[in-house]
Structures are given as structure tokens and as C-alpha cells.
């Protein structure tokens, strides 16, 4: 489903990834562990094709970076859910509108929008807070809204870039539980984190990254 073949990319500052080989199969849960500046976010950006390999290539859900045209980006991204440490919610819209917004801008039929938005809000346990504004929610709840937004287009993989970085341990654990549930239903997850503690005792696959290189 996701294959990286000897992928390298570096920013002018020198940060990036070098010679990365990685395969993620459907339904897999993978932790990407590494310190700040190790290349975790760059690796995620390469997968959702915000940046492109300077050498090597990536195949995501059949889209090959070597033959990729920029006009394919929206269609690739509809199959990838993305969540961030800072949630990236629209603060001038309610929880419900944050979700329906995604469906509106991706051309979902009007009749389906409400039904699908309510379904994902139920999955993250926020149905009762659908009319609240993001600022009226706790950090953990805001991240759950972000997860709902990422899931509403039924992606094949959820990319999570330090999703618990801004949360207290209880809220962080809550988010991990939700990600687990999503994974059990069949959505693959690649979660980047700098926290070793978070993955202690996990049976899931762990990929370490350091100075842009994967280490086994």
C-alpha cells in the first residue's frame, strides 16, 4: 500500500531523510520514533506528497512519485487522513462544520454530508459536542475532532504527526485508544512521535529514525 524505495530528500537547512526504505501494508499500525529534527515530519510529507523525493521513489495507493502529476494530489489526499500536534482546526467554525467542511470541499453529495459527519463524530465520542467551537474544547477533544475530520473521507491510512505532543498523559492515552480502535476497523496508521515512553510495551511495529535514516 505504501512503499518507499531508497528515498532521499533534504531541505536547504540540511534536514530531511536519506535512503529510506519502508513498506506499510493495509491495516498495519506503525510507530515512527525519533527526536526532533530526525526527519519524521519530512517522511510523512513525502507520503502525502507535500514534498517529492530528490532520489528514490514512493508508491502510495498506486500513485508513483516518478509518474506523479500535481493534479493528482487532491485525489491522493482524499485517501490519506492527516492529523497534527497543533490540530489545525478552523476556529471560526463549529465542530460539526469542521467535519462537513472537508466533505463540502471534496465534492460529497449534500444528502450524504450530515450522515457521514455524525457517524465519525460518534466514532470519536463527540456527538454531544458537535455545536461547540474548537476553542471551547479541551486539547484532547480538539485532537479527537481532528481525527474525525481525517477519517470522514474513509482513508486507507491515517498519518499522525506527534498527535499527543500537546496533550497531558490522560488525554494522550485517550487519543492512543481511539487510534487503536480505528486501526482495528482496518485503517492503517503511521504515527510519528518523539516519545519513547508512549510506545513502551507495545506489540506494534516500531520504526526508528535518526538524522534522516531509518535504524532497525
Amino acid at each position: 500500500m505504501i512503499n518507499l524505495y531508497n528515498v532521499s530528500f533534504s531541505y536547504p537547512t540540511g534536514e530531511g531523510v536519506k535512503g529510506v526504505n519502508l513498506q506499510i501494508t493495509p491495516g498495519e499500525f506503525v510507530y515512527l520514533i525519533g527526536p526532533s529534527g530526525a526527519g519524521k515530519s519530512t517522511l510523512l510529507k513525502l507520503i502525502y506528497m507535500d514534498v517529492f523525493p530528490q532520489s528514490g521513489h514512493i508508491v502510495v495507493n498506486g500513485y508513483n512519485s516518478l509518474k506523479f502529476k500535481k493534479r493528482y494530489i487532491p485525489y491522493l489526499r482524499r485517501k490519506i487522513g492527516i492529523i497534527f500536534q497543533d490540530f489545525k482546526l478552523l476556529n471560526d467554525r463549529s465542530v460539526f462544520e469542521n467535519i462537513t467542511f472537508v466533505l463540502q470541499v471534496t465534492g460529497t453529495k449534500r444528502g450524504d454530508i450530515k450522515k457521514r459527519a455524525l457517524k465519525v463524530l460518534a466514532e470519536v465520542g463527540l456527538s454531544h459536542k458537535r455545536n461547540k467551537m474548537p476553542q471551547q474544547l479541551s486539547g484532547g477533544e480538539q485532537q479527537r475532532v481532528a481525527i474525525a475530520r481525517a477519517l470522514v473521507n474513509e482513508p486507507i491510512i491515517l498519518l499522525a504527526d506527534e498527535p499527543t505532543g500537546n496533550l497531558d498523559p490522560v488525554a494522550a492515552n485517550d487519543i492512543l485508544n481511539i487510534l487503536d480502535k480505528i486501526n482495528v476497523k482496518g485503517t492503517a496508521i503511521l504515527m510519528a512521535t518523539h516519545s519513547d515512553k508512549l510506545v513502551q510495551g507495545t506489540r506494534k511495529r516500531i520504526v526508528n529514525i535518526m538524522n534522516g535514516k531509518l535504524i532497525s
Partner: protein
Amino acid sequence: MLYHISQGIKGLLKAKFSTVFAIIIITLSLLVIALFLLFIVNTQRLVESIHERMELEVFIDNSVDSLAVNNIRMEIDRIAGLKEVRYISKEEAAEYFVSQFDENIFDILDHNPLPASFRMKLEKDFRTSDKSNLIINQLKQINGIDDVIFRQDLLIILEKYMRIAFVFVLIVGGILAFGSIYLVSNTIKLIIFSRSEIINIMKLVGATKNFIRKPFIVEGIIQGLLGAALAILILIVALKIISIEIPNLLVMHTEIYWNILALGIIFGFLGSIFAMNKFIKY
């Protein structure tokens, strides 16, 4: 489409100051362009009326008899571009002399030296110095014609000033158009910056480039339309006031209003396209 229009209006309301500023600049630019068009239309009207009054006069040799005059008439009729050909006999020429100088030619001379002539006008499409020259040469080649008189110098001067005025209008109009497009583009850039967060989220969740762009195109077109509407309103009011004070001084064609409206839309559309090409990319 409703989504794009509502987003476009929301964007304009958010950037009120720069929107109003851009609309005012579009209005002023279109007003100046409209004034130039008004000037051109009315100068053309003046030139047309001068052209309409300009006559070619063909003098016939005194030795030519009446049969030959008929032949000359037939040959003149064969030349394309001439209209209202009138024969002025020697007697009519003498009467014309009296009307012009208030004196009888026979009081000065014992005979009538004034030749018979043909007077004629040029058809609209032949009122250029090149075409009139061609006609004069054809006339001169007719047997029995002594001389051809035509105030061609006036025609040349009129053509020259019309050309200068046209080039001037084109240059100033071009500069104003560029300025308007630049300002609309800047307003749209400000709106794009103020909405960079939502644009980034749209990109992340898979909105197409066209979907992201449409509200900004709507914004540009609305600015252009409002600017043009304001310019047209000011023009109508100003022309109404002028026509009350000095009736028939200026003529305004309805097409000019449509042209202004179209120009406003084009300025707004191009302004938004330039801004987006720079700031909304994947």
C-alpha cells in the same frame, strides 16, 4: 457554485478596506478610460461632420461643349467613392460668385471667365488622404477636366490628430488598466493571506486547485463589477447634468457602458488570476 459565491462575498467583507480601495481605483480608472472614449466618440462625430461638408470641385475646360460635359459626367459616375455629383454651369458659377462676393462678375469684366464645374462629395469609406488622392488622379485623367480642387490638407491634419489622440488614449488606457489589475491582484493577495489557514487545510484534505481558486475569482469579478457599476453611474449622472446645461454637446453610445462593464469584469478576473498563480499552488 453557491458555495463559491458565498465564500467570495465573505472574503470581500473580511478585507473591507482593501476591497473598497480596489473598487475606488477600478472606478477611477474606468472613468478616465470612459472619458477618453467619450472624447474619441465626440471627436469622431465632429470629424464626420467636417468630412460630410467637404466637397471636391472638378473644373471643366472652357472649350468643352455640352456633349462632352455629358461624357465627363458619365466618366465621373463610373469612379467608385463619389456621391452627390452636381453640375454647376458657368451661369450658376456666376450666381455663386455674387452670393460670395456680393458683386456681379459682369460689373468687373465684360465676359464670364468662371468655368463650369462638377461638385461632389466622397463616400464615407473613401474619406482618407490615400483614397481621395486616388480619386483625384482618376478625375484628372478624364479628358476635358482642367483642374481638381479638394481641401486635402484639412483631411491630412484631421487624420494626423485623430491618430495621435488614439495612440494617447491607448497608452494611458493601458497604463490605467495595468494599475487596476495590479490593485485587484493585491487585494486578492491580502484576502489569500488572511485565509492561508483554511487554504492549507483545504489542500490537506484533498480539495482541488480549481475548487480553492473559485471563490477568489468570484471576489475579483465582484470587485470589477462594482467598480464598473459605480463608474457607469457617475458617468450617467455627469452626462445628464451636462446635457441639461448644454444640450447636444456630447453624444454617448450605449456600447461604451457595456464596454466599461466588460472591462471591469476583465480587470477583476485578471487581478485574481495573477494573485492566485503566485500564491495558490500545489
